[in-house]
């Protein structure tokens, strides 16, 4: 004989609520994404290094920051996607 479970009447435990909600709607994003705020990194380099990075940036149509960040990313450093993009403010018109 089949065992038929009675419907629950009380609210599930908090952990069960999270598990049910996650299973029922797995594609839902968090309400608030973790913030990854911009900050500053100043680096002193030899003029020749800056000239080389500048030349590479010109060659690839990138910013200096992009050249450095792309190289770091290729070396396996976890660079944020936003830092791989050209986000230079540009004048309109």
């Amino acid at each position, binding site marked *: 004989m089949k065992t038929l479970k009675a*419907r629950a009447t009380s*609210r599930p435990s908090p952990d069960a609520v*999270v598990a049910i909600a996650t299973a029922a709607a797995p594609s*839902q994003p*968090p*309400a608030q994404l973790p913030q990854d705020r911009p900050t500053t990194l100043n680096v002193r380099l030899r003029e020749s290094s800056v000239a080389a990075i500048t030349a590479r940036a010109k060659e690839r149509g990138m910013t200096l920051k992009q050249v450095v960040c792309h190289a770091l990313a290729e070396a396996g450093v976890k660079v944020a996607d936003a830092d791989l993009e050209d986000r230079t403010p540009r004048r309109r018109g």
Partner: protein
Amino acid sequence: MTVLTIASSKGGPGKTTVCQALGGTLAGELRLVALDADPTQALARWAGGAYEGPPFKTIAEPDETRLAHLIAAQADEADLVLVDTAGFGNRAATVAMTSADAVIVPTLAGEADVTEAEKTVRLVEGLARAARREIPVRVLLNRVRRTTLARHAASELEAAGLPRLSAALSDLVAYGEMTYSGRLPAGGQSAAEVAALIAELRALGWVPAAGLHPHVEA
């Protein structure tokens, strides 16, 4: 005691306005706690700033795991836990709906609003099945005008088989003013509409009777 979640997968149908109207009106009658699961914290900001009525406890928490624990803890202490959610599909809103004893889905009359209201109702129904418990849900028409559009929206909700509250909130300046002045509608049509909404929620058993626990926690 009762957890009442206000949810919609669309932004702008008046979830926070409904929370403000219910919270401000019921705060003097019940032990009320409002949980703000919307990262914009519009309800928490209003309750802690502009709001001038009887104080009620408000906690902002958009993280779904912490929210689930918070709802359970507050439900043990308060007569009514009101949960405001963000206007897009997100985990905190889903947790708030799963934890709820009832869900109100405010909607405007536009096609996209009614479509998202239906999606939200279906999500609540799915969550209720997954949780193996009843989670009653009703749509609340908001910013209603006496127009063909409003009548059409109501008929669309009916055609989709969506349960609807008889009460509705009209497109009145008083609700917008409330968000700045912090004062609940004291008279006229807006006050009557909020009273009718609360009366209907009490009749459904979604809001406890007044005066059971006159203690109000700030």
